[in-house]
């Protein structure tokens, strides 16, 4: 096999790129992916529509801050930090809009105040005299113009005004405000780990059973093949659902469950290969020379199966990835684990459709599709290498 | 009955040309049992395929094949189809998978009867039984599937099928290949009987000169696409003129 040509294939390059992103991404990205990064259901930052504001954060001190605002109101108004003042002084926090001013807080009697004002709080709305139903940001940001925040009577302050906008991040945010792009990168690991390990385990199981059936023959063969037939007749997804629901939804449980139900195909191929090779002259020759059965098995038959195994692995990974994604989509995966299937589940169950949040659907879905296509291409390439007839033979005269 | 003039058939295969038939001309008079003898690759089967108008699109043909005065090669598909089986039919090679596996023998026969002779179902069934009996098979064969019959039985059924629409000309392309000697003899005898009874013109294609000499009135010898010699069996065997014919004769004697 020509290594250079292999590495030059687009699918291999894409695969390496994805692996690197999956490994390095979590290292390079700061912060916890599970943290709320912005407003819920924020659009991607490059989405150009209806003057949606991007997220804006302002860190400032007792001198206050001011800025121009020309877009629609942000999703959230959040003011946090500390203010130091003389206990006898009356500290006022004033929010000036182009229309009027609001006194956000009037504090006295302490030397240090810890602030956590959120425009969504009922108490906040009540304090400002705003209607309790509806968004306070609509009132706090009535129009385009100049806005400012002033602190009266403080010695010093260390504050941050967070205005998560309706646009945030490369790929928007989900229902909890988590950055979708970050989730996407973290999800690479899950898909690859589950996909590859489940298939590898299944392939070894398949090889084991195939070898046993083909080489030992007799009752072992019949038994194993009957088992294969029965297992193939059981509807896959329901049994996976039952197992996941009952045994647990953890990563390695899912891997095991997937392996148990995908070794059948490989075992059949291995078995038929062994059956053909078993009768071949050179095996007969080895037996005549006095070679032991175990020697023939390990030193000759097993290496024969290696190419099939490799191709089967590459072609089996998409199936495993899809099964994991399917289970996760149904909700049967570890909620603490970030996976693309889980992202689709949350999109489906937590309102992405009512919000029209397509950015919660397309990235994880397309990621799954991409991985599947990559492995299918690799698998087909390996198959062609093993059996050159398949490569050009597809063209019928 | 059959007048072949300057027939050339070439197949195109991956950029190369294979000359199967090179400028072959011969005439077969009505009522003759003629034999076309040659090794594999001599072009004999291509002549049969060409006469039935069944050459693949990739084949290049030139020349004329005149059947009863009309050139088959210049006919369109409609005309060819009306000719097939009604006027010219074929008994294929013994090893040929010539019957559709999921359809009964009777159905095969009834199908052509309905199509070419416009028979209704009842009459077609009667005729099917008669045809089978004529070739020495029990009428119950009509309900059998091809895989249930032995090689010899299948060939007899193929003959019955070939004669179903009362054709005037019959091609028999190596009909006894893959059959054992006893069965071969039976099939040959049957063919001869049918030809005499129905006054058919037969072109019997084979690689076996001895077999052809036994039953044919006239022999045509082919090699590598050329027609190298023709004559009566007696002439050919006792006085072969071409070197290839001499080789073939020597192989028998």
């Amino acid at each position, binding site marked *: 096999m020509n290594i250079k040509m292999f590495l030059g294939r687009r699918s291999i390059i894409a695969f390496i790129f994805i692996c690197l992103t999956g490994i390095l991404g979590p290292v390079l990205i700061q912060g916890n992916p599970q943290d709320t990064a912005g407003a819920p259901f924020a659009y991607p930052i490059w989405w150009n529509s209806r003057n949606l504001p991007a997220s804006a954060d302002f860190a400032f001190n007792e001198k206050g801050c001011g800025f121009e605002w020309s877009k629609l109101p942000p999703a959230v108004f959040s003011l946090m930090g500390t203010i130091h003042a003389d206990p006898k002084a009356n500290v006022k926090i004033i929010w000036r809009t182009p229309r009027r001013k609001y006194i956000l807080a009037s504090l006295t009697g302490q030397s240090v105040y810890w602030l956590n004002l959120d425009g969504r709080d009922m108490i906040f709305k009540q304090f400002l005299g705003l209607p309790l139903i509806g968004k306070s940001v609509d009132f706090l940001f009535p129009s385009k113009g100049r806005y400012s925040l002033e602190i009266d009577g403080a010695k010093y302050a260390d504050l941050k005004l967070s205005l998560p906008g309706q646009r945030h991040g490369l790929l928007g945010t989900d229902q909890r405000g988590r950055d979708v792009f970050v989730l996407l990168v973290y999800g690479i690991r899950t898909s690859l780990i589950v996909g590859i390990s489940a298939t590898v385990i299944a392939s070894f199981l398949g090889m084991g059973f195939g070898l046993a059936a083909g080489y030992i023959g007799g009752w072992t063969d019949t038994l194993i093949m009957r088992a294969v037939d029965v297992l193939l*007749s059981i509807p896959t997804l*329901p049994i996976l659902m039952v197992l996941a*629901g*009952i045994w647990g939804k953890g990563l390695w449980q899912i891997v095991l469950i997937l392996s148990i139900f995908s070794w059948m195909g490989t075992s059949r191929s291995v078995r038929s290969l062994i059956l053909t090779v078993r009768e071949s002259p050179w095996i007969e020759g080895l037996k005549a020379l006095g070679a032991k059965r175990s020697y023939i098995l390990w030193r000759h038959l097993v290496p024969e199966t290696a190419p099939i195994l490799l191709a089967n692995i590459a072609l089996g990974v998409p199936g495993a990835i899809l099964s994991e994604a399917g289970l996760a989509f149904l909700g049967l995966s570890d909620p603490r684990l970030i996976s693309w299937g889980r992202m689709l589940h949350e999109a489906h169950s937590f309102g992405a459709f009512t919000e029209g949040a397509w950015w919660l659907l397309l990235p994880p*879905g397309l990621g799954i599709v991409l991985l599947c296509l990559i492995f299918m291409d690799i698998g087909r390439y390996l198959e062609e290498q093993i059996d050159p007839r398949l490569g050009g033979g597809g063209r019928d005269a | 009955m059959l007048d072949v003039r300057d027939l050339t058939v070439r197949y195109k295969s991956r950029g190369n040309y294979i000359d199967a038939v090179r400028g072959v001309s011969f005439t077969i008079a009505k009522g003759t049992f003629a034999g076309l003898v040659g090794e594999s690759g001599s072009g004999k089967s291509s002549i049969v395929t060409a006469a039935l108008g069944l050459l693949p699109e990739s084949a290049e043909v030139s020349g004329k094949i005149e059947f009863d005065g009309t050139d088959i090669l210049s006919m369109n598909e409609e005309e060819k189809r009306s*000719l097939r*089986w009604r006027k010219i039919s074929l008994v294929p090679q013994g090893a040929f998978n010539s019957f559709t596996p999921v359809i009964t023998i009777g159905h095969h026969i009834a199908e052509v009867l309905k199509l070419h002779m416009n028979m209704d179902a009842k009459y077609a069934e009667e005729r099917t039984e008669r045809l089978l009996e004529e070739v020495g098979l029990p009428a119950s064969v009509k309900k059998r*599937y091809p895989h249930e019959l032995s090689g010899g*039985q299948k060939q007899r059924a193929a003959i019955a099928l070939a004669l179903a629409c009362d054709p005037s000309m019959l091609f028999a392309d190596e009909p006894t290949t893959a059959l054992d000697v006893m069965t071969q003899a039976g099939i040959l005898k049957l063919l001869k009987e049918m030809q005499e009874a129905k006054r058919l013109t037969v072109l019997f294609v084979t690689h076996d000169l001895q077999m052809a000499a036994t039953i044919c009135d006239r022999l045509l010898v082919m090699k590598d696409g050329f027609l190298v010699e023709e004559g009566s069996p007696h002439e050919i065997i006792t006085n072969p003129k071409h070197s290839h014919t001499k080789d073939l004769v020597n192989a028998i004697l």
Partner: protein
Amino acid sequence: MNKSWLLRRIFSSLAVLAAVLVLNFLLFRIMPGDAVSTIIDPNFSPEAKNRLRALYGLDRPLIEQFFIYIKQMLTFRFGLSFLSRKPVWDELMSRLPGTLALMSSSMLLSSVIGIWLGVKASLNRGRWIERMVLRAGAVTASFPGFFVQLVLLMLLARTFPLFPLRGSMSIPQPAGTSAIIFDYIWHMTLPVITLTLMGFGGWALYVRNLMVRTMGEDFVLMARARGLTERQVVYGHAFRTILPPIITIMLMSVPGLVSGAVITESVFSLNGVGTFLLAAVSGHDYPSAGAAFYLLALITVICNFLADVAYGIVDPRVRIEAGNK
């Protein structure tokens, strides 16, 4: 029909069923703790749980439980659902028609469209329809169907609100039978269309390959030699010969069909056996989960058996012993 062949088919189906039953039993009995202790429903007091344990016979030895279980499964008495307290049988039966309708309509459409395309592709070698079939077959094979369904749902129910977002009927139900029927069809269009979309490619490719191979066979040439019309040759002989393998993939596609239906029901929030199984499994409702799984496996086994029988009807080589001379 050959009796021994039929008997062998029945026996093999029963073997699968037996395996499913044993598997089902073991699954729910050998996990840590016992079924009742893991009930999440806070309304169950410890006394109630003990009573439930006794009711389900969970305090009896395992062998005895097994026989009780077999008897229950064979008589379809599944007990009460842990979650809804209603008889599981009723719950399943109310949902079964919907699931069956979804599965059978998409199977029908996929196969009919796929077969038609496959035949057309094989007759038009090298033209666009063949290329389309080849590509569609390769793509739909390893593609996350539920992603396509989600995208189409978003596109056709939210971006362009042509279809409903969820459910199999509107709430409240419209008045009049024809309005109800129309409403049902409107709700089921997207699920059925998307399931069909995922399935037709495989059919088309398989049929195309079969036809291409068969059209090159000797007996097809002979059929032409007999002066049969092209139509008779293609449909009466070539296609007729590939019917048995077509039945085979109908057989092989049933487990996939069940899985597809489960996912589709989830995506479109339909009230079917699949969503019932999901809820039961997520909520540790063992009677319901076991029964739902059993039902789905039963459907699979029955469909496989029917396909086997149909294969035998259609391919005489299978049911008539070769060599009757």
